[in-house]
């Protein structure tokens, strides 16, 4: 059986790319045609209208699509998560200099950011910070990061969306002062000498829900084999022994615009954070391991709470229950054990 699976080029598309390219899908009798999508909005619409059979998708966007908050309302299931974490906040060298935190610790960094953001807002030229989509953990992590420094993101910072491959150029031209984006784009900005990784997403929100595998809800026959294939591919991706081959595969197939060595660092969590080559290691920076694959309804509830906090969803109501019902640990369990 042949299916069309959409993805956006990011390190955490690894499990679906590996499933399609390394034979995990074929072992389940599936042939996956990978469709690289130019934006999350287009991926969402194509999944909602049946142009795609499955997608590597921002968890909050899958929820928003199914709840009719974003694009044409879709009937979706989330039978698997594709990993946790993987984002970072990167700021321009100039902004890092102005923040001048006493240490690399999150509290100091957030305080420095909040101080500069307040000063700039006071001068009538607020900081401009990039995110990837309104319905993304990136937007929520930026809000939490600002909150750590006592800053209200809505009133003090100009939030814009920058397509991840454009983030480096936007920093270079001074159009943005920083951004929160997934791997490998933070590392690409550092390697270009244009940015400083200020905070890791996994420090701002530990084990933060990230991409999921989203499928149409109409119990498609390929659901179980696809979940098994992506699960097994995910295990292969998480094995440190395979990092070298996986990095080369991603550099080649995912058009990540970066070399394999840089991608390998995002997989191992040994990140270079500034132009001087300072290294920071956090093994949880991007988690693809087995424990992250089960779709957790509590993650859906947490994401809805973030949507409420930034005004995307009205408080009260049943949004959290409806979102939690989309995440299907039962389908996952049956698929991987059955």
């Amino acid at each position, binding site marked *: 059986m042949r299916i069309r699976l959409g993805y956006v080029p990011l390190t955490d598309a690894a499990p679906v790319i590996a499933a399609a390219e390394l034979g995990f899908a074929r072992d389940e009798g599936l042939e996956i045609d990978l469709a690289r999508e130019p*934006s999350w*909005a287009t991926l969402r*619409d194509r999944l909602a*209208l049946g*142009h795609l059979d499955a997608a590597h998708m921002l968890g909050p966007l899958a929820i928003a699509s199914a709840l009719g*908050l*974003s694009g044409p309302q879709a009937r979706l299931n989330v039978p698997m998560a594709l990993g946790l974490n993987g984002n970072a906040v990167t700021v321009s060298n100039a902004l890092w200099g102005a923040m001048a935190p006493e240490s690399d610790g999150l509290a100091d960094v957030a305080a420095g950011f909040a101080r500069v953001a307040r000063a700039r807002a006071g001068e009538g030229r607020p900081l401009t910070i990039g995110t990837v*989509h*309104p319905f993304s953990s990136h937007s929520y992590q930026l809000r939490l990061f600002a909150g750590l420094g006592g800053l209200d993101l809505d009133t003090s910072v100009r939030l*814009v969306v920058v397509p991840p491959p454009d983030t480096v150029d936007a920093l270079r031209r001074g159009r943005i002062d920083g951004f929160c984006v997934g791997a490998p784009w933070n590392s690409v900005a550092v390697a270009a000498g244009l940015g400083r990784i200020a905070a890791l997403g996994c420090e701002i929100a530990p084990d933060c829900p990230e991409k999921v595998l989203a499928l149409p809800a109409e119990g498609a026959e390929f659901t179980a084999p696809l979940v098994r294939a992506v699960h097994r591919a995910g295990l292969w991706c998480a094995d440190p022994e395979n990092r070298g081959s996986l990095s080369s595969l991603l550099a080649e197939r995912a058009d990540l615009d970066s070399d394999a060595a840089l991608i390998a660092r995002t997989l191992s969590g040994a990140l270079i954070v500034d132009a001087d080559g300072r290294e920071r290691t956090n093994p949880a920076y991007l988690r693809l391991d087995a424990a992250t694959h089960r779709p957790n309804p509590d993650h859906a509830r947490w994401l809805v709470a973030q949507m409420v906090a930034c005004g995307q969803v009205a408080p009260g109501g049943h949004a959290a229950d409806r979102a939690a019902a989309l995440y299907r640990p039962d389908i996952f369990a049956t698929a991987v054990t059955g």
Partner: protein
Amino acid sequence: MTETSLTVAVIDPSPARAAILEEGLRAGGVGQVVVIPDGPDLQARVASLKPDVIVVHLESPSRDVLEQMSGLSRQAERPVAMFVDRSDQTMMQAAVDAGISAYVVDGLRSERIRSILDIAILRFNAFARLQRELDEARSELADRKLIERAKGILMTRKGMSEDEAYKLLRRQAMNEKRKIVDIARAIVTAADLLG
């Protein structure tokens, strides 16, 4: 249709397709049509143009940028919403099939947007058809060149006339139940490899 009071922005990674849509909207009576290229200036240009409708191709990387500018965000400088007419699933499907999405300012009556979407769907489908025909013509030309080369090889190597060479190609194709161009390609490849 008289939509002289409307401003429509067109965003499309293909300048040729954008030009065709621009022309179509003008001919349909839309007052102001502005093509805005994808890129770092897009948000500022949309904010200063203040279009009533934005027609954007699905292949544009700028769609997420427009979604941030929509009412989904408290920071929205110019609230626009993605045009999703739930009452008309066919229209939505036709738009997406043609590669179109639209964002509109709040309060614009949906029938006014639909006439614009109708033009966009017609123009984009016509463009896709032209593109397909062009691709077919190109590949036909490439096939013919390949057959000419194969005939030339047979004529030189086997001392055949052009007619005999063509007949040999055709007979081989019939015997193997393949296309003449496939046989020609095999001959050209073999000749390239064997020198």
